[in-house]
Each structure stands twice: as C-alpha cells, then as structure tokens.
C-alpha cells in the first residue's frame, strides 16, 4: 500500500503449484516489492495454529509455527498461514510482467498469474459490522478477513518503500 499513481490499477493473483516455505514467500514478496508499483498485497493459505486445536494433545504449543515473520519495507507481520496464494493490486498493467519475472526468479515450481477483480469494491455486511457505515480507507476492503485483527494482520507500508 505505498504507491500513488494516476493510471488504472490492476489486480493479479499469483498461484504457485505448491505451498511456499516462509523463506520463499519472504524472498518473493521482497522481489515483488522491489519492482515497485504495489498498492495492496494479500497473502492467503491454510491456517498454521500456534497450539494443537483438538484431541488429546489440545493446547500443546506447535513450535514449528512460532516466530515466523514476513518482513517487507519498514514493517514486519507475523506469518500465520502457509502461503498458497498472493493477491496484488498494481498501479498499472505494465507491472504484471515485472511480477511475473520476480516469480520466475524465486519460485522453484510452476505458478500461474491471473488478472481479475480480487478485492471487493463495496463494503459487505461484515465490513459494516467491523468498520461501521463509513470506511476510512477503502483500500482495506477485502484485504483482511472479517475475524482478522487490524494491528496483528495488517501492515501499512510507508510511501518511501518500493519503486527503488
């Protein structure tokens, strides 16, 4: 969420053939961020719980899922999912090729990049319940799921990042 642009933004989905390790996801996001023009980024995948959720072992911490950080620009987010899908909003269509090149450099497996409308444009009922009738910054729509905590799952990068 860094770059201001006059051109029409585009949204793309990166869908790798396999789930990404945290280190690979970190490298990929760094490469994409370096190429600039990023308006919004969302990473999605199956949840990685911090403790065993059911059964006789309920509550036992899962050490493998602790302390995984995604660092980007001047922000760091705790990684709570296995990265399986990345949604991007780019400031213009020409950026797609740069994203594709970044994926080719970093991803060890095949992937697909599809351009489509990904983030919703109007507030849903869940958005209304979460943010009220007036959404302060419309870029937040569709960026996090309704149960997400803003301070834990969302980071706003400064305008000085990217486009380096």
């Amino acid at each position, binding site marked *: 969420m860094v770059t201001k642009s006059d051109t029409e933004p585009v949204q793309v989905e990166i869908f790798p053939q*396999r789930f*990404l390790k945290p280190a690979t996801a970190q490298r990929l996001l760094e490469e994409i961020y370096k190429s600039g023009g990023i308006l919004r980024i969302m990473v999605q995948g199956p*949840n990685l719980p911090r403790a065993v959720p059911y*059964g*006789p072992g309920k509550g*036992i911490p899962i050490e493998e*899922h602790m302390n995984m950080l995604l660092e980007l620009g001047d922000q760091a987010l705790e990684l709570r999912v296995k990265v*399986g899908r990345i949604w991007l909003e780019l400031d213009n269509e020409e950026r797609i090729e740069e994203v594709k090149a970044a994926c080719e450099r970093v991803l060890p497996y095949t992937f697909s990049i599809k351009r489509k409308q990904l983030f919703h444009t109007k507030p849903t009922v869940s958005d209304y319940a979460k943010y009220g009738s007036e959404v302060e910054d419309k870029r937040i729509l569709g960026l996090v799921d309704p149960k997400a905590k803003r301070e834990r799952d969302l980071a706003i990068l400064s305008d000085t990042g990217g486009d380096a």
Partner: protein
Amino acid sequence: MAYKPQYYPGTTSVGVNRRKHMSGDLEKLRDLSDADVVTIMGHRAPGSDYPSTHPPLAEMGEPDCPIRQLVTPTPGAAAGDRIRYSQFADSMYNAPAIPYFRSYWGAINCRGCDPGTLSGRQIIEARERDIEQYTKVQMDSEMTDPALATMRGCTVHGHSLRLDEDGMMFDMLARTELGSDGNVYYVKDQVGIPLDRKVNAGKPMSDAETKKRTTIFRCDNISFGGPCTAEKRTLDEGLITLHHMWERRSKWGFRPE
C-alpha cells in the same frame, strides 16, 4: 475349480493396484519396528503391558454359542484388549491408497476391525494388539508413501491441499518432517503430541513411483477414460461397472444376487 475373487474390474494400473489393495497381496517396501509403530500411534508406551477391558476370554467362561465355537477370536479379543484406532490421511496427489481402498483392505483382510471411510481420511478401529499389527502392515507396504500419507488421529487437513515445496503433504500440526538424509521422520504422534525421539518412516517415493502405485484416477496420470479433452473417450471397465451399479441402484435398489 476353486473360486478366485476378482475384487475389482479394469485393465489400467489403477485397477491393478486397487485389486492388490483389496486382495492384501501387497509389496513390502520398508520395515518399521513394532516399537516405532506403537510410538506413532501413541496409545501406549512401547514395551508396556496392554491395558484390558475384560479378562481373557479363556478365563471368562463363555456361553455355549455355535458362533463362538466357529469363530476363533483375534489375539486382541482373546486377551481382552481395549479398542484403539489408527487413522491415515492420503494426499490426492497420487497417494498410493485412498480411504475407500484402505477400508476395502481392512474389511477383507483384517479380522475384528471396524473401518471408517471419510472423504480425506480413513480410520480403522480394532483391539489394541490387532490394530498395531494392521497399522504396521499399512506403514510397511506399498499402501503408504511417507510423504503423501500420514497417520493423523486429529486435525487431518491435507488430503485435498497442494503439497509443500519439499513434496510433503500439508500438515497443520507438523507431525512429520523431511530429514536431511531424505527420510521422512515422525516428530509427533498421530494426535500431535511431541515424541521423545524421531521415528524414521522411510524414504518418500519418486513422482514416477507414486504414479505407478496410486489407486487414484487422475486426469494428469491414469484417467477413467483417457484425456478429458479427447473427442472420444474410452471408458475404463471400472467406470463402466460403476455406471452399471449406479444405474441398478438408482432404478431398483442395489441388490446383488
């Protein structure tokens, strides 16, 4: 001429593998120790006594019953063991077994067991010393690829998800890991409780090997009727039989006679 069960139709490798699973004529690929299997199952400590729910049948004085005279009890039933389970999740990416064929294998080949078939996992319940033996057969044989099939008692999510970068099936509880020596190790038991020592479950199969041994029809491997995009599809005998059963069952109720 003695009757020879045919088990499953079809001429594809998938049909052949399904017949192998059902008949119990399985190739043994690795040899886990009994203690390792017991450790992964997590119901009792290896080497400890079997807890029991009733005295041994020999001491109980069973009633005079023709069925009891006909059927020899399994070792677990004779000793009065508890009922325990093992449950496997198999990846849809060409895992050797799938829930239905684990269940067919169990129902046909394992005495005194109760197989439960679900969409992405399969559970078998039996007396404790019996289920340990049945689980060992599954883990040692071609029914299991340690990377694509994991023993998961709970939080089984993984069957229909993409694989991890290293080719392992996704596991929310991180029960298994791929070691630097190329072997898959269980670091937790089937319900996610950490183990005192890692248990070696063997090497994962190669892509070519999984494609050869799988019981899953897939468009990118062996499909039911050739490529989905082909103008004319030649249906496997398995599918024709399935259609036949479906039609009969829908029209008149399934009554094999």
